[in-house]
């Protein structure tokens, strides 16, 4: 997921669907650790993005509560990934800065109504789902496969709830890997 996540962040920042590298292109000798570290950084950044958005006073209280809930989940995902990365010998990761957030998601400060905010959330969640779906092809430790799947399940719930809040079909596909808008 190294290339996937980096590319994903760039593409997410541009507001376009995440493009995935072919699994073979991601092969390296330490795939589990790089997947965990990249996934953790992605989650930390998205947690900060949701927290920032939840502080936007022009959004209604219900939406801000939803964003706060999702932000908490993203931080828990990051913590779970970090724990496994440290177990594999990865170094501690610094928290993302506001400057980095603004660089990766420059549109964040312009999201001032519910439709724009929820559109941002659905794009992010779809990108995360695509990244962790790709991780199912790359990870080779049973507990990491299960962790990635439990993160996917949580992101899929976020996506369904965001779609429902927008007023569109919350479950348009029977196979949720972030491909369906």
């Amino acid at each position, binding site marked *: 997921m190294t290339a996937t996540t980096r590319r994903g962040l760039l593409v997410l920042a541009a507001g376009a669907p995440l493009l995935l590298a072919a699994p073979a292109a991601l092969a390296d000798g330490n795939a589990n650790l790089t997947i965990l570290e990249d996934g953790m950084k992605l989650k930390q950044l998205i947690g900060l993005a949701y927290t920032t958005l939840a502080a936007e006073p022009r959004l209604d209280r219900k939406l801000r509560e939803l964003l706060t809930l999702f932000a908490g989940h993203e931080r828990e995902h990051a913590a779970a990934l970090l724990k496994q990365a440290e177990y594999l010998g990865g170094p501690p990761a610094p928290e993302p800065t506001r400057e980095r957030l603004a660089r990766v998601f420059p549109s964040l400060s312009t999201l001032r109504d519910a439709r724009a905010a929820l559109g941002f959330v659905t794009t992010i969640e779809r990108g995360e789902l695509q990244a*962790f779906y790709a991780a199912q092809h790359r990870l*080779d430790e*049973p507990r990491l496969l299960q962790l990635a799947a*439990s993160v996917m399940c949580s992101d899929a719930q976020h996506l369904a709830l965001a779609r429902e809040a927008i007023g569109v079909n919350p*479950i348009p596909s029977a196979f*949720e890997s972030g491909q369906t808008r």
Partner: protein
Amino acid sequence: VLASLGGTGAAVILGGCAKNTPVKTQSEADAADAQVVASLLEQEQRAIAAYAHVARALSGKDRALAKQIAAQERRHADLLSGIVKRLGGAPPAESAFSFPQLARGADALRFASDLENSSIALYIDALPKIATALVRGTAASIAANEAQHVALLAVAQGLPPAPVALVVGRR
């Protein structure tokens, strides 16, 4: 997924097997995967029958939700059945399932929610046992869809829709 499982694709998709499993020949790996996928298919068959039962106890929006979910369970079953066949296995025969009587809509929604959580737990348990990466991805995408069902059933019950960050279901 089914197209990728045919012919020369099979060798390619064997990458990414769980590290702790012993090395198997392709046919052994296919047979083992077919067995795991068949057990997931049984759960989908149970879910299809269960939603027919659940829908009878519901009305209005809740009934429409149950029907939409049932249609997705059918999609899961159809794909899994195709995968089992492509891997050289035989899909399990459809059984007659028995379910508890569901007197009220609330009972039906709670029963459906329990069923979905049980499905998620089964899928998450199965993932490391599946050697074929594409099939593993498909199983994860079905688990994610079941998790969405849980969230929407919780909304229908007036419960918190996403109470945990790491969704693993429960038996």
